[in-house]
């Protein structure tokens, strides 16, 4: 490949640049068939590699360059964030910030739900809970007042209990 005369090399490369086909070149330089094919293959390989180069992450230059002759827009921020393109640092920081903000919003919303649970209980449930307490309290108050009434009539607690039971029995059987 490297034994080809420099003028021939220049001619081959020029022809390839001008879009001459490999077959046509091989017909012209049959002795250098392998070299021509290999060079063309490598050229295509480089062209494919070139198409795979990612575009640089840039913003319009105006947003990054300090305004000469005018007010410099926060050179620290520009230098550290945009001009030096330290996106390896900026990106994780931005992502972390978004996660923190998002998390705060999400959990504060969720915490609010927990805190509001009692107030969000339906009125019927509240009423039901209240009525159970009221009924129990009412029973106690009634029993106490009955016992007090019997005590005023000279009936002891045991007699009161017995009367309650007998009354229960008689009520049951009378019914």
């Amino acid at each position: 490949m490297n034994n080809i005369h420099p003028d021939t090399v220049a001619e081959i490369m020029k022809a390839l640049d001008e879009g001459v086909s490999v077959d046509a070149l091989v017909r012209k330089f049959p002795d250098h068939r392998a070299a021509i094919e290999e060079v063309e293959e490598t050229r295509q390989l480089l062209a494919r590699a070139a198409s795979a180069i990612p575009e640089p992450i840039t913003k319009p230059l105006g947003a990054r360059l300090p305004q000469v002759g005018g007010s410099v827009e926060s050179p620290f921020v520009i230098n550290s964030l945009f001009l030096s393109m330290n996106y390896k640092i900026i990106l994780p920081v931005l992502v972390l910030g978004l996660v923190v903000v998002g998390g705060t919003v999400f959990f504060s919303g969720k915490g609010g739900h927990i805190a509001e649970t009692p107030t969000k209980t339906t009125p019927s449930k509240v009423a039901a809970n209240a009525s159970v307490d009221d009924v129990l309290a009412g029973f106690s108050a009634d029993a106490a007042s009955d016992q007090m009434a019997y005590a005023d009539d000279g009936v002891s607690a045991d007699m009161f209990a017995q009367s309650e039971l007998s009354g229960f029995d008689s009520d049951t059987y009378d019914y």
Partner: protein
Amino acid sequence: METPLEKLYTEYARALHRFAVGLTGNVDEASDIVQNVFMRLASKQNSSTTITKAYLFSAVRNGVKDFWKRKRPIPFSHMTAANDTENEMGGMDIPDDAPGPLEQAHTASEFTSVLKALQMLTEEQREVLSLKYFSGLSTREVAAEMGKNENTVRQMEFRALSSLRRVLQSKK
């Protein structure tokens, strides 16, 4: 309205970035180098220096040199393949059924392989291929950038392509 520097950026930033990618083998570093070039130009905007395309490529080239100074030097054993550009191809026993470079291009790592292989070439070879294939300059433009005549550039390009192919095949 775009300033003259912004116009230069719009026109050449992409080609300069791709040139730096070829020279450094590192996309992120290439971005930083190009940004630094324009930053320095912005800070010197009032100076009398005429900014031309050649000036920009030269500035990127210098930025790349600084980059290499900061990096660990390449071991000599890794450089021998690149410096052996005058070795004959016939000395290598390549089986017929071996996948060629084009077939390798189908793999996801092909781009990385090419960039790594480029780093094994001599500085001049890397430069000529980067300018021609990555930055998209014509042979005449490459010759102007490198201060050589067109035929010399074509011969350099031919040798660089041969070397690149050898490096890629040796990596298989």
